[in-house]
């Protein structure tokens, strides 16, 4: 009888211990689930990770949403900026009869010929989230005329970005845009490179949540 009573106490005690463990476990899990960044923290981070909301003045543009860029980009990557490389220049004069004729006219009249240079960043690809595989290290570029309008990347910055490979004059480069880029901030969170309706929902959310949305995109 006494043995049975002791056994009952043991079982009861065990159930209590398990119940306490379960409660504590749920509380710990609940505490470790990442909460979105506060508006105050986002405002602080914007000093280092600005949104680029203006357009170059001589150009007529249309904007794209982040997911539109995700849809058309060849690859969506997570990458870390290793360095900014010196800009490179291209000659657009041989890209069709129209441009050859205009080039001839410019030369004959002593008009300056537009030869754009391109900013380029060396980026270590940490992960391909979606699309075609890319090399471990890629060069991300944009036209230097758009400095101040496209993200100025700094060494050590991490980004989620839709990219597409360059061809012809840009063989070996990849291109990206503010419309298709989020900075990774405070290790686990994201902040857009341009303000739009999607960024209102996504700024300060976790990197995982952005990845999930990209992966879920058909």
């Amino acid at each position, binding site marked *: 009888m006494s043995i049975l009573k002791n056994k009952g106490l043991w079982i009861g005690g065990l159930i209590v211990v398990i119940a306490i463990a379960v409660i504590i476990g749920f509380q710990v899990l609940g505490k470790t689930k990442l909460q979105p960044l506060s508006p105050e923290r986002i405002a602080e981070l914007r000093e280092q990770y600005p949104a680029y909301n203006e357009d170059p*003045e*001589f150009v007529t*543009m249309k904007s794209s949403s982040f997911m539109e860029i995700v849809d058309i980009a060849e690859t969506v990557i997570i990458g870390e900026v290793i360095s900014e490389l010196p800009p490179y220049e291209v000659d*657009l004069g041989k890209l069709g009869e129209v441009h050859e004729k*205009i080039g001839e006219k410019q030369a004959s009249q002593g008009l300056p010929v537009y030869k754009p240079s391109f900013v380029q960043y060396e980026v270590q690809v940490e992960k391909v989230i979606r699309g075609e595989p890319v090399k471990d290290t890629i060069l991300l570029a944009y*036209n230097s005329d758009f400095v101040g309008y496209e993200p100025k990347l700094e060494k050590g910055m991490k980004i989620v970005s839709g990219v597409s490979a360059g061809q012809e004059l840009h063989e070996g480069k990849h*291109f990206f845009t503010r419309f298709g880029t989020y900075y990774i901030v405070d290790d686990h969170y994201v902040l857009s490179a341009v303000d739009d309706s999607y960024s209102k929902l996504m700024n300060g959310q976790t990197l995982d949540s952005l990845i999930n949305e990209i992966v879920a995109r058909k």
Partner: protein
Amino acid sequence: MMLLCACFVLANYAPVKAHEIYYEGTPPNGTAIVLKWNKLSSGKAHLEMNGDYLSSSYSGQYATAAIMWPTYSSKVKVDQASFSSSTVDLATATESYWNNRFGYLISRNYLGICDATTTDNVLITSPQTAKNSSKKIKHASIYLTPFTSDLESNNHKIQLMVHEIGHALGLGHSDAEFYPSTADSVMKRYGYHGYYPPRTHDINDLNNKY
């Protein structure tokens, strides 16, 4: 003396006269870098225009676009000219050019661009180049997107050409970060707003400029 002071203040802080392409300073207020078309005939900006290198996607709308500014503004004169003598050339870029100039992936976001050259042969690409130039535009090469499916309609094509010709005249975007306006304008940055003739706002900008 008070009147003199008041005049000085007004002269320095008067509202923007025309929406310029470039400004110096911090938005929304700044010091205008005033670019103007150089050749004037009887006080009118005189553009000698050519559209020989427009593709069939645009050529049907070119004639209408070319007369929009002189039709609505007494400050603009447009003549058609041969390609060799024209001062404003409109051309449809090749896809290759568009991709290589603006970059793959992003090129479809660009609809048109006006490459303006000043009388001292400075190609205007930034506020700095504009500031260091004569500020008098003598030639403009206007390139239009080859991806015409990105434009809403033929009227949008006309509006795009009218908008780029507006840049050649020295007009900036009416809703840019400096002195932004919500008034109807063919010089708005984005999109087609259902009209292509210059609006009152645009005409006033030209009247203030020329």
